[in-house]
């Protein structure tokens, strides 16, 4: 995951633009991306539709993981049912087959169970989420309330810093600041004033 890495690496610089209007924010994200700047991540209090495209994010591979988990659930149930009902102790009731349609409900339920839990575990692992973990990238305490944050890498010289800050201000940012990482969870932050 690039976001955490860039925050932890020494001598990285990141510019944050903090917004209060979601529409202006979305617009600015799209412009910054088109300009060629490297957007590390954005932080929003609610899921914004279209921001993934504006940021140029790829589609998640989680559906594939979910499918594999589902298959695993199906096979587990099939193995359990056939082992207990057919191989270990064939249970013949009314001369009905020991392997048959009566397996279907449990096959279905176990498939769903494994898909849901597998998917949740994959999601937490992929997003590095863990119970009790402190939020590592909390730029503004109101980013889960009413503010949106864009984090842009500024040490790769893709876009001029002044141009970038002007772009953020003209896009409607209420606050722009630059952070320089000195080491693990050690950084200095400078607020950038609007040219106007």
């Amino acid at each position, binding site marked *: 995951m690039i976001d955490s890495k860039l925050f932890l690496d020494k001598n990285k610089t990141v510019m944050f633009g903090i917004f209060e209007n979601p529409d202006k924010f979305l617009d600015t994200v799209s412009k910054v991306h088109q300009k060629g700047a490297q957007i590390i991540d954005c*932080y929003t209090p609610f899921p914004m539709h279209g921001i993934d495209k504006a940021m140029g994010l790829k589609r998640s591979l989680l559906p594939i993981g979910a499918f594999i988990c589902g298959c695993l659930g199906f096979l587990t149930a099939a193995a*359990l049912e056939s082992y*207990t009902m057919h191989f270990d102790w064939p*249970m013949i009731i009314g001369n009905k087959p020991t392997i048959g349609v009566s397996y279907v*409900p449990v096959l279905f*339920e176990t498939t769903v169970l494994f898909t*849901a839990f597998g998917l949740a575990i994959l999601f937490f692992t992929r997003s590095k989420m863990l*119970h009790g973990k402190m939020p590592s990238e909390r730029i503004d305490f109101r980013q889960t309330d009413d503010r949106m944050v864009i984090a842009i890498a500024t040490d790769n010289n893709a876009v001029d810093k002044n141009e970038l800050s002007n772009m953020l201000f003209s896009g409607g940012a209420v606050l722009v600041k630059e952070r320089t990482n000195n080491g693990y969870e050690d950084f200095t932050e400078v607020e950038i004033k609007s040219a106007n």
Partner: protein
Amino acid sequence: MIHDSIIRPNLVTGDKNLHDVTLEICRPIENKPSVSWKVGFTISAIFLGLLLLTLGITLYVGIGTWGLNKTVQWGWDITNFVFWVGIGHAGTLISAILLLFRQKWRMSINRSAEAMTIFAVMCAAIFPLFHMGRIWVGGYWVFPLPNAFGSLWVNFHSPLLWDVFAISTYFSVSLVFWYLGLIPDIATVRDRATTAGRKFWYNFFSMGWTGSVRTWNRYEVVSLILAGISTPLVLSVHTIVSMDFATSVVPGWHTTIFPPYFVAGAIFSGFGMVLTLLVIARKVMNYQDYITIGHLEAMCKVVMLTGTMVGLAYITEFFVAAYSGVEYEQYAFINRATGPYWWAYWSMMTCNLVAPQVFWFKWARTTPWFIFMLSIVVNVGMWFERFVIIVTSLHREYLPSGWVMYSPTLVEIGIFLGSFGLFFTCFFLFSKFLPVINIAEVKGILKNRE
């Protein structure tokens, strides 16, 4: 937002901005509980005590404390079980099926409906578990665990075992779905927390959530897949519950109409309970701007539709019994309507088929006190439906020598009333400690963007 329709009325009224939503939904969590909360919680806790007492008596003395007998071996216990499982269906329907249908009005009510699902399934689980008698050795009776009797396994051909898998999967998947939806909102509460306790616990459960768009992006994918798999799951659960009856050879039970009929009934009763809770909650917690008359009206329409479907099923059952020419089947239905339990049958018909028809009138769909009264009628009617199906079919079996009457004992009544205590205690705790409305999703549908 860019996908918003400009001609549709606002789903959230009061011209709120993002911060207003956070403030108002976090208010009950951040302030001291109100007097009405304390009164409600105390009454619920007393009933929860009644549940513990009556379950204790059942365990200590045995199942003989219930009114079951050799003919009516399922009575109030399984009636209550199906009743609670049915109520648990609205939550997943609202959050999963309405998500797939892109019904945005679900966003104000899905959180509380999902909570209701989880609490209702917990209440439901009590009844079959305690019906087993020696619950402490019940593990290997319901789950395929290796045990001391050699190769003696549970029977996968039995619908009762399918039900074990269906209910436990439904409960755990609903819990995952609910918790996942809660994480962003828990993070919102965490970032506003002022006390050490709140900071610690909300931080613990928010799992380091920052609102990162990369995470949101995955989160949306996860929600969609969970909704996709929960949709057939919610339909399968009550289908399988209906198979507990439909795969038997008891007249009045073994009909192929049972699965769709039970699913419609479950949605009907679930929405009935959602209405009962939310009409009160929106008033007490001052959430009229979030759960608007428009929301209530939409739910009333669902109640009317599913009530009519259930009514159609009742009539179809009668027709099929008559048309089949099977005299046992015919007798079972005539006995339901005119036998000793006629009052239960006609209560069911009146509450479920006739009463919801008033929702054809706009006044009925938009008047909260009336909706509340009618939602109680729906709850009562759906309880009677299960009672009618179970008790009237069992109390007169093939041999007239086995005909008996069934009436509940005080212990059974206590467990049933106590289960409401458990349900409402959980709901009151939920409304105090967690956001009752999905903050993040509601923010996404606001028209005021400042």
